[in-house]
């Protein structure tokens, strides 16, 4: 299925098959996509043309395992902010290929995942600066519970000649309980001198002092952990412009992590 967006737009849709979205020159708007349906493999292709500005929020609503491939071509002065929220207790394998093809291209990709028992979340992210003055950024957040399996390989590439480009990434993983597996591999392939690049990575259990502090205000251990988890998921909700929908998904997220278990 193909869709083309022009001027100003705002849309919420379900995606149950491969989808190509094109954002024409100077198109500005936001899209919310819910991944649904029986298909276990889907691809999403994004074409952000010159000076387009797009916010794209994707939520995995699949009741089964999913392999999702996302490709994006970003043109001159285009700005694509894209994120995937995955709270499902189902395996999910994400492949992302982002191409910053012309000067001024900007791609900001976020992923927030909940990994529960025996459920594997695996991602391979790659954003490449092909020309000068481009900007790639990745934010990877995950909360991994007992028996969860999380694998994140995030690569930022700046090729020869793409000077004055930037490639940044951060990966934050909160681990709970025992027997979880967590593999994170931040990679920067830099083949140019005049660039800015950075990566930040943290993997670990919640701080005992923080938990005590939250407990001392009446939150049970489950609720305290839920609240800390929400802190990993909520930033991605900023991609949703519809305040009502944002509040609804925020509440669903809070429920999912046990904040309402009184």
């Amino acid at each position, binding site marked *: 299925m193909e869709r083309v967006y022009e001027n100003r737009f705002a849309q919420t849709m379900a995606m149950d098959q491969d989808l190509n979205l094109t954002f024409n020159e100077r198109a500005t708007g936001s899209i919310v996509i819910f991944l649904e349906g029986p298909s276990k493999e889907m691809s999403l292709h994004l074409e952000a043309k010159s000076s387009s500005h797009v916010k794209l929020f994707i939520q995995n609503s699949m009741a089964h395992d999913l392999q999702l491939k996302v490709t994006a071509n970003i043109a001159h002065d285009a700005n694509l902010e894209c994120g995937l929220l995955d709270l499902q207790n189902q395996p999910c394998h994400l492949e992302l290929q982002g191409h910053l093809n012309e000067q001024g291209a900007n791609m900001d990709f976020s992923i927030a995942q909940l990994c529960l028992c025996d459920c594997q979340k695996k991602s391979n992210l790659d954003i490449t600066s092909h020309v000068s003055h481009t900007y790639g950024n990745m934010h990877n957040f995950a909360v991994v519970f007992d028996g969860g399996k999380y694998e994140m390989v995030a690569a930022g590439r700046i090729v020869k000649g793409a000077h004055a480009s930037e490639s940044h990434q951060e990966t934050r993983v909160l681990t709970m309980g025992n027997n979880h597996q967590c593999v994170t591999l931040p990679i920067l392939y830099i083949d140019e001198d005049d660039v800015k690049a950075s990566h930040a990575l943290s993997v670990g259990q919640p701080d005992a002092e923080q938990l005590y502090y939250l*407990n001392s205000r009446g*939150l049970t251990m489950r609720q305290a952990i839920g609240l800390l988890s929400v802190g990993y998921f*909520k930033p991605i909700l900023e991609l949703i412009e519809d305040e009502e929908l944002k509040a609804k998904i925020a509440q669903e997220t809070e429920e999912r992590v046990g904040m309402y278990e*009184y």
Partner: protein
Amino acid sequence: MSTLEIKDLHVSVEDKEILRGVDLTIHDDEVHALMGPNGNGKSTLLAAIMGNPKYTVTQGTITLDGQDVLSLSVDERSRAGLFLGMQYPSEVPGVTNSDFLRSAMNVRQERPVSLFKFIKGMDHAIQQLEMKPDLAHRFLNVGFSGGEKKRNEIVQMLLLKPSITMLDEIDSGLDVDALRIVANAIHAEREETHMGCVVVSHYARFLDYLNVTHAHILVDGKIVVSGGPELIHKVDTQGYDWIEKEFHVKARKEEKPQPVLLETCGAKKVE
């Protein structure tokens, strides 16, 4: 009517006994000042009452309105009506003040607090403490100055409405104006809820603002003398030396952490 009763409390940290038999009873509408030299057990007492897992109660009882506090978890103690305004509140990145406080209020009620009621209460508390309006949207204590953290503790107290409030050096980090603001907020809350208070402070002016009803001096893990507000002014003018002489006790000296020697690091110079 709320009563917190502590009897013969002994508390250890890592097998070292800090409290050696504390007796203290706090009723509604009472404000107890807890004073004493640093490192003699004041903060330990409050932390043990709240249930900080670092502290082990080896002997004695704590009851709140007859309920055994020691058998309760930390969160249960909070929901039972105890509140500890901490000396060093934790920073919690990623969790906004509003999410945190709304959750903390919700666990106290059968039905979640309505958004309107929550925002109204939070705005009122923020105004009362003269804090910046963006407090609700900031991450919990992250990037706060020392004074902001302490005021934020009081914001929490105002919203959670405990029956017994414990404040551990809540005045440190507050300038003269902020001290007055915080004291006024506590005072107003007492007027409204009649909560009992235990306040650890070295600052007589702050204790004056709070209209202290009882004062206790804790030395070497025991309350050696109790009295009224006059005790605070005696300490303020004479220090603690007279207590050591009069009551034949020796204040424990605060142990300064020793620097850890990491042994010799080697670096090879390459020509």
